[in-house]
């Protein structure tokens, strides 16, 4: 473990402990509750629900999430490139710095344009 991360690890454990401990402690000091079974029904404007909530939802949400995953991979590849960019420029390797990323983004641009034409980003009219 790089030493600078150890305070961060302790911090995240502390942060995790904060809600967990509070939830558990409050459970014991909170005043008790009453009420019948209707109180524990889902809140749907006071009407008792007739069906379970797991009905089919639109697959357009799948398309959004899928595109997000792909574009996220791109972002993660861009970060190391951005970090090294200035040192390449300092060594006067601007072409070497720019061209690989242009090729990478160019290939993905092809996909973007195809999806645009296909209407995949038009998330309102997708079936």
């Amino acid at each position, binding site marked *: 473990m790089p030493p600078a991360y150890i305070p961060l690890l302790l911090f995240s454990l502390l942060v995790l402990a904060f809600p967990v401990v509070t939830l558990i402690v409050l459970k014991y000091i909170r005043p008790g509750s009453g009420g019948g079974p209707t109180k524990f029904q889902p809140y749907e404007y006071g009407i008792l629900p007739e069906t379970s909530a797991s009905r089919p*939802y639109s697959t357009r949400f799948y398309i959004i999430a899928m595109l997000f995953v792909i574009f*996220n*991979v791109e972002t993660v590849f861009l*970060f190391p490139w951005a970090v090294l960019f200035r040192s390449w420029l300092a060594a006067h390797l601007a072409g070497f710095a720019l061209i690989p990323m242009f090729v990478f983004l160019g290939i993905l641009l092809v*996909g973007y344009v195809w999806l645009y034409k296909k209407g995949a980003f038009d998330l309102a009219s997708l079936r």
Partner: protein
Amino acid sequence: MLDSVIFYFFAGIAIVSAVLMITRRNAIHSAIFLITTLLATAGIFLQLRAEFLFISQIILFVGGIMVLFIFVIILVRLDVPLPQVRWRTQKWIALLVTLAVGMEAGVVLWFARKIPGQGLIFPNPAPADKLHPNTEELARSLFGSYLLPFEIASVLLLVAMVGAVVMAKKRIDA
């Protein structure tokens, strides 16, 4: 000392939640335990000083792929427990075969750990400063020796994007 404590902490979480993941009947619970495993693995990456990989594991695997999984589980109504009935005999045979393969690999690892010169004995990690500015080192390698795989990765992403959209939009009237 501290390093091994951290390793065993994360390794324990990873294995326990992996076992829980394959035994849950509800797919969302499985997804949550897979998330825990992935986060513990990210911790192990950090312990191995692969800092950039730690954050990409969180951004891509946990924040990207697992969100996609949960989306699909909710969208296709898989969030109810499914019966696990048929395949009884096949299940036991499969378990047996897997365990045999695992034992084999484990035995190889176990006996190779003491043989010098066999490529498996690394009692101590390389000095930490060899990987030190981790993001910069990784970038130098990625845009140096591995430039071609990097460009091919973009083709892979392009194909995945197109393929997934075609798959999800396809409708066959049966």
